[in-house]
């Protein structure tokens, strides 16, 4: 009786699994999610460039010195999701802020240079982000997340890889 029941449960699981797995991202979608490179050279100070990786919008923002200053001059403890600005950029590359471009509330695209902190303001439900992409007001629970990326050179980043890339892979 128990053995029959156990066999039944295993059999049922074996049938259900392919149906659930087929809902997950397919191989083509995963393959299309390979890292992308972004040339920072043409991005002027104060400019924001939108790129896509894995179908997700990513903001690459070349911050001005006043934007960097306003991001650094913040009482970290007062933030809803406390994070210093230094933890949100790569060391030695403070002007470059690379964040996901979808609001952490429900995924709308926040508008740049809007809101009280001149970072971003989300038109959907009113979340306000500062020039470090940190949530300051509104319903979004966390800061704009930072995608995995690496500086390949001073003027080029590779989005989708956190560690230093091997030379062979960089040329691929």
């Amino acid at each position, binding site marked *: 009786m128990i053995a029959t029941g156990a066999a039944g449960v295993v059999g049922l699981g074996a049938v259900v699994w392919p149906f659930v797995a087929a809902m*997950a*991202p397919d191989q083509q979608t995963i393959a299309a999610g390979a890292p992308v490179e972004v040339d920072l050279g043409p991005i002027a100070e104060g400019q924001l460039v939108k790129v*896509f990786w894995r179908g997700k919008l990513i903001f690459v923002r070349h911050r001005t010195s006043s934007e960097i200053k306003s991001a650094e001059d913040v009482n970290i403890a007062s933030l809803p999701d406390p994070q210093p600005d230094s933890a949100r950029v790569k060391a030695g590359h403070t002007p470059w802020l690379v964040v996901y471009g979808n609001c952490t509330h*429900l*995924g*709308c*695209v926040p508008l740049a240079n809007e809101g009280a902190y001149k970072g971003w303001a989300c038109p959907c439900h009113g979340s306000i982000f500062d020039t470090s992409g940190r949530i300051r007001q509104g*319903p979004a*629970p966390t800061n704009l997340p930072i995608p995995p990326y690496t500086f390949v050179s001073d003027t080029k980043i590779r989005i989708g890889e956190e560690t230093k890339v091997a030379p062979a892979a960089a040329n691929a």
Partner: protein
Amino acid sequence: MSDHASTYVPKSAFAKWFESRLPIAGLVHSSFVAFPVPRNLTYFWTFGAILIFMLGAQILTGIWLAMHYVPEATKAFDSVEHIMRDVNYGWLLRYLHANGASMFFIAVYIHMFRGLYYGSYKAPREVLWILGVIIFLLMMATAFMGYVLPWGQMSFWGATVITNLFSAIPIVGDVIVSLLWGGYSVGNPTLNRFFALHYLLPFMIAGVVVLHVWALHVTGQNNPTGVPIKSAKDAVPFTPYATIKDVFATICFLIFFAWFIFYVPNYLGHADNYIPANPAVTPAHIVPEWYFLPFYAILRAVPDKLGGVIAMGAAVVILAFLPWLDTSRVRSANYRPLYRQFFWVFVIVCVLLGWLGSKPPEGGYVIASRVCTIWYFVHFLVILPVLGLFETPRPLPSSILETVLRGKKGGAGMPAGAAAAPSTKG
């Protein structure tokens, strides 16, 4: 009322032969011909029939649209324009289907508020009511996924916002969202599966509607007094009285529907949805279709992601618990002087929430949304349980017939033949 021991008598030899093998004619006769209907029903009781008609109409136009629509991210928007421009009467089919969804919700909201006013959810109709809530949830899912299919800006961003609701669930949220998307963001796999589900769900609704009607025919219909049928004189046979009335009401409703289709076919939609989906730009004012606005306002009223999602879900699910939240034993608000006032306050709050849901989430709108959201839940969780204990209801009539005869002096029209011989038609 519940016995389907039919009074149907097969007339021809074939009908006798068939009835003894599959008694479907007898079932139809006992359910839709001889079925006793309270004689005091108003036109608020015709919306069930209107809703069944609308479900059939949506399925019919939907199947025809599916013959031309392409559920692929790069072709979906163009295929909808192809339907509008190239397909013979494609514009009519699409406007019928798109406005039909709105009409469906207008009818279902009238149907639901009717139930709230006359206490139609109370014993013995709890299961009937809960089946209705399930239909409502399925309708919401179907309407949402249908709105995604044209793959315009509102489609795309609506899909993004609604699927992201599930990411608020702790731990498993991100996995669920990824299974909904079939990718790392809303994209072609999402569109594909939404199309498959949008085609499936209406047939599931049809299945639950069968249960809903079955449950209705077991308990019998409620009526404006809330007093059950006590004798044959309280009732009239379904056919012809309810049949003709339902047909007439449906035709009037169709005139209203036709006015939208032929004069303001895009009034209930959003201009932004005629812009192809663009993952890099969110429309300046992203709002759902009008029928979701009250729930959207509740979502935005809570300044916390998970809290907002829970509040929005609870606003619908709480309806299923209504039979036990309302402690009054009197069904109809006509005999509940206090509930009647709170009912209308509740209606105003729901309409206000709808209006607030269409406004940007800032300043006074947010405060008003919060007040209305709190009232929405206070109505169900405090007012309804407490009111039943303190309210003194007005005396109930001894029978439906008594109210009808009293109403006649006031000039309320009732079919004279029905009053004279209600049972002979059956």
